């Protein structure tokens, strides 16, 4: 009977304090009745394995004790969708910018990762995690308080259908028309990129006669063209097969990630643009060069931030698609969720 005592002790440990003491007495009695009946049927004592089987059938002690817990939730089904939306908004408008800023430091600030033992990185990510936990905890507390208040005041019962907001018509562009638009802009970019050598004015404007890209940038010309061509392939494929909705975010996630890595190397090139001969020897132009370089650096850094955000968005879209596909396969209705 040692097993039964251990089982009951484990249940007692998991029972909430203040529960009547006779719960265990009753469970013990029920177990002994079951064992006794089985022993009478078999005409012998049950061995340890057989008792273990009976206990296993009854369930884990935590589950058994859980049956005696009061049915309660922190945030009920009525408020849960709003709670989840608030968490998503906090993640999108607060945490995502944090991550972007930290990534920018990591990629663009040359001294940031060079600190000994990655101290900067450790410190800032620790602060980030702390802020995240605090933010989510605060939202949870606010909603839990609201749940308690609304349960008492019942203001969800006091409503007027005539005061509901008017229906908003969303007319999102179709996937195919968006693909064709992207195709047009991508082809334009490829044409521009292929002809930039002949027509540097399309990038430098009137300063094209004075400046030219640094020689080190030449190494990135063909890889960037390659990424644009990969995107072009995706756009052509999606124009023909619009039902392959996963292809766009998957391709753009890959190409944008590669582009972000390239940009992190490009931004380390100094200078990004140089003066053409014979202007490199003229003092007044030499003074203008750092200003132009700073401007180009800022533009590329801005592009880098945009690309990192785009990666996050495409990653999110892929996760959404996977979740939708999984729900579609299971064919299960959305569960009522509570916290």
């Amino acid at each position, binding site marked *: 009977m040692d097993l039964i005592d251990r089982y009951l002790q484990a249940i007692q440990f998991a029972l909430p304090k203040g529960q*009547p003491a*006779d*719960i265990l*007495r*009753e*469970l013990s*009695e*029920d177990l*002994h*009745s*079951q064992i006794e009946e089985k022993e009478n049927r078999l005409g012998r004592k049950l061995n340890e394995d057989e008792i273990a089987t009976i206990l296993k059938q*009854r*369930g884990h002690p935590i*589950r*058994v004790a859980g*049956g*005696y817990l009061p049915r309660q939730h922190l945030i009920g089904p009525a408020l849960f969708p709003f709670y989840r939306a608030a968490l998503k908004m906090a993640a999108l408008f607060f945490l995502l910018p944090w991550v972007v800023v930290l990534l920018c430091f990591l990629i663009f600030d040359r001294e940031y990762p060079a600190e000994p033992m990655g101290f900067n990185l450790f410190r800032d990510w620790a602060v980030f995690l702390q802020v995240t936990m605090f933010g989510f905890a605060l939202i949870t507390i606010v909603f839990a308080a609201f749940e308690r208040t609304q349960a008492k005041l019942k203001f969800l019962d006091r409503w007027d259908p005539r005061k509901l907001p008017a229906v908003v018509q969303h007319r999102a562009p179709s996937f195919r028309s968006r693909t064709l638009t992207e195709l047009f802009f991508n082809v334009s970019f490829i044409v521009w990129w292929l002809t930039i050598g002949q027509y540097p004015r399309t990038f430098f404007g009137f300063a094209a006669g004075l400046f030219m890209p640094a020689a080190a940038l030449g190494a990135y010309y063909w890889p960037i063209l390659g990424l644009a061509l990969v995107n072009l392939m995706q756009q052509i494929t999606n124009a023909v097969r619009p039902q392959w909705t996963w292809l766009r975010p998957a391709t753009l996630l890959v190409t944008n990630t590669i582009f972000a890595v390239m940009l992190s190397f490009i931004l380390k090139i100094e200078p990004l643009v140089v003066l053409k001969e014979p202007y490199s020897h003229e003092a007044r132009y030499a003074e203008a060069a750092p200003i132009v370089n700073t401007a180009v650096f800022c533009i590329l850094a801005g592009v880098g931030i945009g690309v990192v955000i785009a990666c996050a968005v495409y990653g999110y879209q892929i996760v959404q698609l996977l979740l939708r596909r999984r729900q579609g*396969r*299971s*064919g*299960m209705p959305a569960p009522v969720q509570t916290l």
Partner: protein
Amino acid sequence: MEHSTNGALFENLRLELRRGSLVLAVLAGLRIEHYGYTLRKTLADQGMTIEESTLYPLLRRLESQGLLTSEWREQDKRNKRFYRLSAEGRLMLKQLLAEWRTINKSLDEIV
């Protein structure tokens, strides 16, 4: 894969369907005094199996709602807790049975 998902869905819906019926079955079963083990056996013999981890918390809840009364008594040299319907429980059972019959009738007509 699809078969097992369908099985899980059926199990979820079956449990939901059974949840309310269990209360009715337990209340009806306790028109005669029982202790937990014999109540469980009686219900199982009549096709209504109920796990111990469901039955005992349910008995506690129904008792705290005033629908059952209980007392510890010795039987076969062991102390057992006997349950039976309270007066309030009897009235509740009557109302619930009427409701259940109405639902059954409606369902028969719908199905």
